[in-house]
């Protein structure tokens, strides 16, 4: 978690110094799972290089297989994705079509009749389940049963 915190701090500082707004990047850490979202491939590339540099600084081994880059496009998935991403990034990270974050598989959305038919269904279902769990926890608290951790 300490490392995740360090990464979040470094990514935030670099993004803010480059003049990026809240709409251009998102830092989402969950315990030891670190996730970043960017609207520009160059920012994503910089972050991956930064992750690699931190690993060298902290004398930690860096596994390419466990670091993923997923591209999601507003219309159609471009077939020439490799050309866009660049060879340097490919050497550092696994370019994938999907990533599992917080139990949801995030991948290229599907479009039907101009509307997005995609992960939102899965995301909605997951949020619904979480709400159910939270409700149960509230009921437990009513009976003076307390849980140490919150989901």
């Amino acid at each position, binding site marked *: 978690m300490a490392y995740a915190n360090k990464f979040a701090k470094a990514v935030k500082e670099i993004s803010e110094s480059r003049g990026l707004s809240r709409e251009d990047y998102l830092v989402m850490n969950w315990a*030891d799972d670190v996730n970043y979202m960017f609207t520009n491939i160059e920012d994503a590339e910089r972050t991956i290089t930064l992750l690699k540099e931190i690993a060298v600084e902290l004398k930690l081994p860096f596994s390419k297989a466990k670091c993923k*880059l997923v591209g999601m496009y*507003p*219309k159609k998935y471009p077939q020439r994705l490799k050309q866009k991403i660049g060879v340097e990034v490919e050497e550092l990270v696994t370019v994938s079509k999907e990533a599992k974050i917080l139990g949801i598989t995030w991948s290229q959305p599907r479009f039907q009749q101009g509307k997005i038919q995609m992960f939102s269904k899965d995301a909605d279902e997951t949020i619904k389940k*979480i709400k159910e769990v939270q409700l149960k926890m509230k009921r437990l608290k009513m009976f003076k049963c307390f849980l140490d951790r919150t989901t």
Partner: protein
Amino acid sequence: MICGRLYLLQSEKKKLKSTTGLPSKKTTRPITVSSVIQKLLEKILLKRITDLVIRNTEVENAGFKPYMSCELQLQRMKMFLLNSLKKDKPTYIVSCDIKSAYDNVNQNLLFKHFQEKILSDMDEDPDRENFRESTEMLLYYILKAPNVKIYERNPTIHLTKGV
């Protein structure tokens, strides 16, 4: 003071035993159940350091923190993604599992290290050559260690030194 009880849990499906009668590495999982005193000490420590840790962690770093739930993080991600898609902008997700990518402990190396440490403390034993796996040897020497008491009724080990 008893710090905890070390239970050796064996898989029900694969109750394979080696020639020496000790459980093998693949089917055994040790679990430590802390004592009441240790739990109390942990609670006191937790109460003292929680505020300090929360103050020094970033807002984006969620997980087991008040007001930073899984639901909130999901909503944030969804909103960001929908917003960029509506503006005809692509989204690039960089996902990294720190535990696996940076801090993957090699269990075989760890056991080898423990084994060497225990062996250096103990006299040479003629039975040592009969063990096939390093884990079997490790368990054998743990059970023989002077600070360990074994209760025959329950398969538990009481550790009298810090875990």
